[in-house]
């Protein structure tokens, strides 16, 4: 391959460009067909009045009326709020938990391979199976968790209701989702930890640094690009949570866990408000985009390349 270097950019030859196009073509085609086109169609649908069950009618433009409706809909705004709270709990929980696990696995641990396998198993488990298992485990009346809490002296009236309580259901869901998805973040953190030069720890050891100081002065700064990547990806993923909520609580009790993705689903498929649900989805997209942009801007303060 002939490579011509410019002062700033390495350019491909026309032949190399063709070869590159050949390789990315299939992905690009799939991306256009299954991501871009549906996205544009969704935006289009959000601008028309297609809010009844029946023949697909997209000839009546109402422009931003569906968006205005979203801002006036107290229930929709509450769902966005719940999603935001869910995201806060989930992202904080998973980043801390996966980092902790990665730090543990980065040592010479007895049964390390078995531990890694066990961490990975929830990630590949079926969400319905996860729902059923956790429903049994967290049964406030007959479940083992509350039985254990009662055994250690927690009074019956103080036992948590877990998935059945209005206040406890959303944090419980966030906790289950953390458990389910720990594997990916742990593995990525583990890879980042293994890239940190051991000499730095040795030097710090010589200088008398303790474990916490090494963690905050060496480990966290050096893995900060990875942390940033995981935070961004996890935040985006958390706003798209649907399957676990649908399987475990279906938005209940009441609307305590009716996060925005579930709300959008109901508006579209239960009440046939197709344009309105597309407007809600577009607003969710803009919201996630705004959060991502803010995170991108703030990275200069704490991410060290």
């Amino acid at each position: 391959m002939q490579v011509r270097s410019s002062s700033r950019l390495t350019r491909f030859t026309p032949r190399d460009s063709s070869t590159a196009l050949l390789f990315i073509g299939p992905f690009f085609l799939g991306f256009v067909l299954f991501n871009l086109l549906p996205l544009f169609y969704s935006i289009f649908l959000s601008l028309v009045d297609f809010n009844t069950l029946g023949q697909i009618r997209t000839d009546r433009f109402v422009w931003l009326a569906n968006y205005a409706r979203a801002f006036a809909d107290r229930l929709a705004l509450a769902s966005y709020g719940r999603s935001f709270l869910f995201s806060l709990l989930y992202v904080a929980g998973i980043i801390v938990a996966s980092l902790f696990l990665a730090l543990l696995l980065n040592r010479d641990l007895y049964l390390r391979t078995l531990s890694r396998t066990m961490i990975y198993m929830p990630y590949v488990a079926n969400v319905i199976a996860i729902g059923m298992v956790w429903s049994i485990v967290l049964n406030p009346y007959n479940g083992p968790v509350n039985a254990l809490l009662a055994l250690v002296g927690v009074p019956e009236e103080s036992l948590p209701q877990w998935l059945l309580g209005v206040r406890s259901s959303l944090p419980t869901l966030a906790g289950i989702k953390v458990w389910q998805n720990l594997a990916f973040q742990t593995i990525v953190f583990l890879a980042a930890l293994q890239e940190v030069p051991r000499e730095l720890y040795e030097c710090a050891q010589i200088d008398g640094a303790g474990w916490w100081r090494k963690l905050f002065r060496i480990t966290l700064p050096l893995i900060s690009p990875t942390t940033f990547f995981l935070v961004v990806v996890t935040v985006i993923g958390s706003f798209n949570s649907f399957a676990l909520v649908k399987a475990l609580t279906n938005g209940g009790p009441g609307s305590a866990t009716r996060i925005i993705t579930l709300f959008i689903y109901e508006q579209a498929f239960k009440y046939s408000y197709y344009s309105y649900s597309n407007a809600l989805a577009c607003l969710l997209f803009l919201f996630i985009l705004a959060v991502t942009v803010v995170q991108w801007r703030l990275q200069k303060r704490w991410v060290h390349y």
Partner: protein
Amino acid sequence: MRRFVHFWLASLLLLPVASFAGGGQEGKAGEQKAAEEKVVTVFASSKAMADNSWTLRNDAFEKETGIKVDLQLVPGSEEDFYDKTDIAVMGGDTTDCIRLTNPLNIARYVGAGFLMPLDDLLKKVGSDPQKVFGKFLKKHDGKLLYLPYEQSIHSVYYNKKIFDEAGVPYPKAPWTWDDYIATAKKLTNKDKGIYGSYFVLDWEYYYYMIARQRNISAYKADRSSNYDTPAFKEAMKFMYDLGETHKVQPTFKEYRANKYGWDTWAATGKFGMICIGSWFTGLLTDEVTYPRDWDWGIVETPAAGPSGKNNLMAGGVWAVLKKAKHTLNAARYAAWVSERWYVEGGGIPARVNLTEAEVQDLLGGIAGKSRGSVTVADLKSALLQNSLGVVDEKVTGPKAKEYTDIIYRQAELYMSGEQPLDETMKQIKEQSDKILLQK
């Protein structure tokens, strides 16, 4: 090389276009082929696919008509069935027949224009729906859009073993809900894990059952919610009290925690009584799916006071979808299956042409399959010849689906002890008015 690459990329981009084109050319030829095919396609849920009665029924249809029944599986729960069929039908799916089990879904599909008028099709296949279904037929703008396959009449089913062990005489009509509660209290035995009563707390109509029995509409004349009427508050409190005050059935949280469902009463034998539609006889006579070592009885629904001497009724229907590929086969299937649904599925058909002997046979069939649990006389007095009038089981009207979902969500909070009753009724009224009065 460049030309080859450009040609290849262009081909890739054009491939989807080419695959969608040319469909129209096979239109007429396809229609003719479809007309000749001895097949009918039917939407079926996962539960239906596993249901023995569906298999028996479809086998009987195939044997009698030579038309193969091809079930189109709609995966997922019963709850999600119509979410998916809505999209399939809107997207131009050519499945022939669909069963609509809920008045809300019937209203939605009629309103959406998804159903094919049956009048001419039924004439072509030699079926006379008026003769078979008579007063149970409903027309919309003068068109017959579906055929009723059952009339689901509520009654109370009871577990005779629980009654015998408690030494309580079997319930007799006429009776009231106070009598029901008193009976349930005598049956409840927490030590043995027995409750005297069971209601499917996932179904929203139970939370306004008492009000419906008094024939009070959920809508005011101006289309707003009638939920500020005291009867609805009383109805909501009735259901709460069963679990929390009288303690004769699982509380809502227990119900949810233990994952109880619509068939728990038949599957577990741990509950004394249940008030539910007559389709339930299908479960009680299906000992393959619901094996049991106890007998069951039946008695008419209790009255909700002097003004509440009404029974709740609903019914399922079969319809042919507008884009059906095999229209005549579909009409034949809809007519056939509506007429004889009860033979394999149990329940009471919505037919007017059954002779007294056939009614005796019908009820005798249920009695026979019940292994002597009930007699024809028991079934007749509970289901057909009782002291009650008839009202619609569910709220049907403008935006009924959203309205009833609001009722259910607020009921969930109240039943879980998370929200007081007055606040619950206020929220239902406010939230539903917002939906109902929206232009």
